[in-house]
């Protein structure tokens, strides 16, 4: 399988006044195309920091990050934005939809920032993405007219719409009840089956069981990395 992500001696240090917080300490990690990875660990162990760096939202303090054989840690802000737009779909715990903007318009948004997309094709593509997550009926609803599970599915449709190879999800079920969590995880599973690489952060072993590989973190280091999965 082809290599998608490769981290070497990756560290991230936050400076808060005199105190240095070592959020990541010399992390080495490779992820291949088509993998389904779950990351677990206590609060404050550096999971989100790692996801943000993999997601090109942030740059490491030291170490190297290669994404699709491309050096990311030396990218400009513009190049990072373009990577986020076309290569990565991000799903957040709190859905992060634009309020007072319909589901359809939210899903269209990543395509508006994509120079390769033709304006005329946007509504149709957004509609197709919403139908894929089972929300074809609620395209014109505003986020506050949707349930949490539905909002998260809109966010997943938004992450999918530019057809990126990598989907990142930082505690995507953290704000959902068990049943909707299961629905959302079924969705990730089918995305994985369709060939997407998925990395997700979770607190619950139940959720991690949907993945094929489980990484455990503690104090900014990778504690264990093992195969997982019953489904």
């Amino acid at each position, binding site marked *: 399988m082809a290599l998608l992500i490769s981290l070497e001696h990756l560290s991230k240090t936050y400076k808060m006044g005199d105190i240095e917080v070592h959020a990541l300490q010399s992390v080495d990690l490779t992820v291949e195309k088509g993998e389904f990875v779950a990351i677990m660990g206590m609060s404050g162990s550096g999971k989100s920091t790692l996801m943000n760096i993999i997601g090109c*939202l*942030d740059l490491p303090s030291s170490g190297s990050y290669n994404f699709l054989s491309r050096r990311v840690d030396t990218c400009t802000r513009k190049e990072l*934005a373009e990577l986020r737009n076309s290569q990565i779909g*991000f799903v*957040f715990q709190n859905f*992060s939809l634009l309020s*007072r903007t319909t589901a359809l318009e939210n899903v269209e948004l990543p395509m508006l*920032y994509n120079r390769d997309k033709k*304006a005329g094709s946007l509504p149709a593509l957004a509609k197709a993405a919403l139908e894929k997550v089972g929300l074809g009926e609620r395209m014109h609803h505003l986020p506050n007219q949707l349930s949490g599970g539905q909002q998260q599915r809109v966010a997943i449709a*938004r992450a999918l719409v530019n057809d990126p190879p990598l989907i990142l999800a930082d505690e995507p079920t953290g704000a959902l009840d068990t049943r909707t969590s299961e629905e959302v995880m079924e969705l990730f599973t089918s995305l994985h089956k369709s060939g997407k690489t998925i990395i997700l952060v979770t607190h619950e072993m139940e959720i991690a069981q949907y993945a094929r590989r489980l990484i455990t973190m503690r104090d900014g280091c990778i504690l264990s990395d093992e195969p997982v999965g019953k489904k």
Partner: protein
Amino acid sequence: MRFSQLFKSAVKSILRNRVRSFLTTLGIIIGVASVIVMVSIGKGAQNDIQNQIKSMGTNIIMIMPGSQNTRGSSMGAGSRQSLTLKDAELIQQVETVIAVSPVTRMSGQLVSGNGNWQTSMYGVTPEYLIIREWSVETGEMFTQKDVQGSSKVIVIGKTIAEELFPGQDPVGKSIRFGKVPLKIVGVLAAKGQNAMGQDQDDIVLAPVKTVLNRMNRVRHIQQIMASASTMNDITKASEEIECMLRNSHGITADDDNDFQIRTQSDIMTRATETARTMTLLLSAIAGVSLLVGGIGIMNIMLVSVTERTREIGIRMAIGARESDILMQFLIEAVVLSSMGGIIGVGISMGIVWAMTALFGLKTSVDLLTIGLALLFSAVVGIFFGFYPAGKAARLNPIEALRYE
């Protein structure tokens, strides 16, 4: 992001906060409206002054006595009595001059069988009508012969005809000016009010010699008016007149003129310049309010950027470049200020219309002013939108996402 998309989302977010957007643009609205109103009033006044000067006649050259110096203090233009009828005759010889008339003015009371009327009498020659471009409606203008013979004839203005001879033809009627009996030979065509609101039809024209010889009060002429044949001849004609008068008044090369020459174009230039300075001053003051309006926009845009930090974070997370965010807020600021500009133009048109319709103020709105005001309001938007938009664009995506 495409411009049409940016524009659409800018309008959307402006309409989302209607009241705030309106209050934000109020400064621009007031600024643009006052600039246009000020310029319109200024331009109106300028046109008015020009028309007024034009209505004096065509290509006019005015010769007035010089100022008299008594013990070192000037008594002002016209205080000398240096002009004579002979000067007027001399000026007639200037080739580029087509008409000349001495002018002497006195006020007094007209007495007819029907009543009295306080008015001004001008002692002139028949050529005065050519210079002023006036015409006689009924009867005739008195002749050069009447001037030479100091005939007791007059031509009256329309107002006097209507006041003293209502419903009658005044031509041929007798009348007195003070104690002197006169015969009316003609009535001038109505000219209406001049720009200052003076009635130009409340006037009596009499042969200049009649006024000088028979009225017992005025002994000298106050002014000589001449008309050059074309506009280009004005300068040449006035130079020749100056030369001629210096000779005839026996003024040596070292001495100053004992008369003054003013041309219509001199007066026009001076008056127009004054009006333009006023317009400039007024619009500069109004322009300051546009700047203040711009600062208001910057203020609200900064608030808006802070309020929408999370939105900016989300947009960045899904791939918005710095330039996309910059353009988004910049276009919002420009749309905001341009909307203010458009509303301001609308309001200014209303005010200008009301001033003209209700108070009879002379105004002149031109498209250039409106265009410039709109352009300027857009520029204000760009200028004052740039700082907040830049601030938004430079946000760190993660910090913006985490902002509550």
